[in-house]
């Protein structure tokens, strides 16, 4: 590997056995801050011996600032000094600043000053910074370079912190594709099959998928949307089509691109509207909190997921104004709103066209079952009694696959006359019953099953009423009053 070291101002040596990616991460992150060009090398020079030796003299001439980092506290201070001396056997280069820092996981003050004839000095009681992760380490390096007036452009400390938080948020968005399917614990990235999307006219909003084929549709892609002049688009689909997974995939893909190109990439913000605008990541950050990290001129894609879960009618009007306000505030931003096909949505968003997410076609259904390693084909499912619109729902494919694994061929029997209600009925019934059959020796499982269904229904009602403010405590209090025969500990069993 060859480096063009001209222009490097900071030379960083580090020791990190466990994490091989640190080298690349540090280089990328420090460079992305602007104004600080760094050269990062492993402290055990053997790992970059050729590069280091070839460039040593040039480094001594060009680099302003040498930084030795002992990241894992793996070496003693004297070891680091020895390493340094081996790296620069002729001592401190004339006019250069040399700093050895025990960046460590825990702060460790130095007890005495170290000074040698080469001019290397480690002051007594020097505050030794500590760090928890790569982002913090980079933050410390940047701050240090400012304090030694190395950085050509001083970036306000807050900006760096903001950018680091933004990187963390983007990493969270990227990880959305690692979400596990709660039905079968599969990972989204492994199983995701994109739905076909078409741009359709408002008139088709209330029509079922099999009826909209009479109208002309234009295929829709996110790439095209990001390039055109539209500021926002509503993506409509009935339940179970995969709107949320679509939004995860979108956010994850854009986050991956933004992480590669932090300064110019389009920044996705995934906003699950069931939490209104109060929680947009796993840390509980609000939308406003994430927006405070992003300069107004940046490209931003607001991905509002599940508008139908936002709240009651009086709140939805407020949302539209809020969304428009954000689009004005961030002139290079766009918004995507996913929603069920509730009748008031087109008028509320003042749209003539929208994007319709379509159910799976036969080839997608077959691909789905192939990924789940189930020997089912769409032609077989169509005999079960489910409608065309239902067969193509990923949620239903998922439920059928669960039933199929349990009951094999019965689920696609011609005689079953399955409809969507029966599919839910069967899945819940078989799961509850299956659970209790395993423990049937211990008690009357029919009675227990009955009680569990009652508890489930009650929890569903409470969840519907209280939404995300529903907690286990609330349920416990409510369950107590239903019927004496429903045991309190049933809930405990249910959610443990």
């Amino acid at each position, binding site marked *: 590997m060859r480096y063009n070291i001209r222009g490097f101002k900071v030379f960083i040596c580090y020791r990190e056995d466990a994490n091989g990616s640190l080298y690349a991460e540090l280089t990328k992150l420090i460079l992305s801050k602007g104004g600080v060009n760094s050269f990062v090398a492993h402290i055990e020079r053997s790992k970059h011996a050729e590069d280091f030796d070839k460039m040593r003299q040039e480094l001594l001439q060009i680099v302003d600032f040498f930084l030795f980092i002992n990241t894992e506290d793996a070496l003693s201070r004297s070891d680091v000094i020895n390493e340094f001396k081996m790296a620069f056997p002729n001592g401190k280069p004339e006019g250069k600043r040399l700093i050895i820092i025990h960046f460590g996981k825990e702060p460790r003050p130095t007890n005495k000053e170290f000074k040698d004839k080469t001019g290397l000095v480690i002051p007594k009681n020097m505050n030794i910074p500590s760090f928890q992760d790569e982002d913090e380490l980079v933050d410390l390096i940047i701050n240090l370079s400012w304090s030694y007036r190395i950085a050509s452009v001083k970036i306000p400390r807050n900006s760096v912190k903001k950018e680091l938080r933004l990187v963390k948020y983007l990493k969270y968005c990227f990880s959305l594709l690692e979400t596990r399917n709660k039905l079968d614990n599969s990972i989204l990235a492994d199983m995701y099959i994109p739905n076909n999307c078409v741009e359709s006219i408002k008139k088709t909003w209330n029509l079922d998928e099999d009826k909209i084929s009479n109208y002309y549709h234009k295929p829709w892609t996110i790439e095209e949307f990001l390039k055109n002049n539209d500021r926002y688009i509503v993506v409509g689909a009935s*339940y179970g089509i995969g709107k949320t997974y679509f939004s995860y995939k979108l956010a994850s893909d854009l986050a991956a691109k933004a992480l590669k190109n932090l300064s110019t990439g389009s920044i996705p913000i995934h906003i699950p509207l069931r939490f209104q605008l109060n929680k947009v990541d796993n840390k509980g950050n609000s939308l406003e909190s994430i927006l405070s990290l992003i300069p107004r001129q940046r490209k931003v894609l607001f991905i509002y997921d599940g508008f139908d879960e936002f709240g009651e009618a009086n709140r939805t009007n407020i949302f539209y104004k809020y969304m428009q306000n954000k689009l004005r505030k961030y002139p290079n931003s766009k918004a995507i709103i996913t929603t069920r096909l509730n009748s008031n949505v087109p008028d509320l968003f003042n749209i003539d066209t929208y994007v319709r997410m379509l159910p799976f076609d036969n080839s997608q259904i077959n691909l789905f079952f192939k990924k789940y390693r189930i020997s089912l084909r769409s032609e077989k499912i169509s005999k079960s009694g489910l409608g065309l619109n239902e067969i193509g729902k990923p949620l239903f494919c998922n439920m059928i696959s669960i039933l199929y694994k349990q009951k094999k061929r019965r689920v696609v029997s011609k005689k079953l006359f399955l409809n969507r209600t029966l599919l839910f009925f069967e899945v819940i019934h078989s799961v509850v019953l299956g659970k209790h059959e395993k423990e049937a020796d211990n008690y009357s499982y029919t009675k227990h099953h009955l009680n569990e*269904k009652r508890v489930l229904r009650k929890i569903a009602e409470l969840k519907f*009423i209280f939404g995300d403010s529903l907690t286990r405590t609330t349920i416990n209090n409510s369950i107590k009053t239903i019927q004496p025969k429903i045991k309190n500990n049933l809930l405990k069993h249910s*959610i443990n």
Partner: protein
Amino acid sequence: MISSYFYIQETKKNAQRIDFIHRSFIEYLLAEYYLECCFRNQLSKINMSILTLETISFLEGLLYLIKSEKVDKNQYFEKMIETFDLEERNKMDVRKQLINLATNNFEKNQVLIPEDNGEYPQMAKIVKQINLQNHRWIAVLLLNKLLDNYKIDNKTFFEFVRSTNNSILGNIVTIENLNLSRSDLTKGLGNYNLSGAKLSHSTFHGGYYGTKFIGAELSFSKFERGTKFIGVDFSGANLSNSHVVLKGEFSIFIAFYKL
């Protein structure tokens, strides 16, 4: 296995928030809950939550099991008997119970609120005026889905419709199996969805603003002079032998169809 229903997340306040694996599971189980309330004659609890299209659609699916005479559906009915603790009752008994419940509750113009026994925390905040007649909508649904061409008291029906949230009728609860013939609709209607309604021999007067009569049965109906139709959709409606009453004389009815 139970993780098939819930997943639990710790909240900032160290409380445990419980989520279902998919929102549609909540809606399905809520439909079962409504049906359970019917079986247990606890209709007031239905008034604690708002009615949604998805939940009502699932409830219709469950009622179809009770109505259907197809042999294979009986397998599910057996399971339903078990899961709702209906013991040895047959379909006819179950239907009869639900129809009696529906007729009694539909006819009584009253609001129902459950007793505050701690089942619903902060009950005063949850109870909403708009939901307090939901049990009557469920009664309409039961009558519509369990019976064919049931002759409902049309005066009571339209008084009820006018007194409640119009977004429910047609958009959530459909009435295609109810016999609403000979209705007196001389007070006009707003943005109601009467698509598929059986309204033959009815009398219309007053203002109709955005009312939908798509595919409705309006034959032999009378439209009194001065009746206004603004933004009304008659597409697919049967208007045969309908006429306008003009000073005691009959003339040909002329309507503009919204296609």
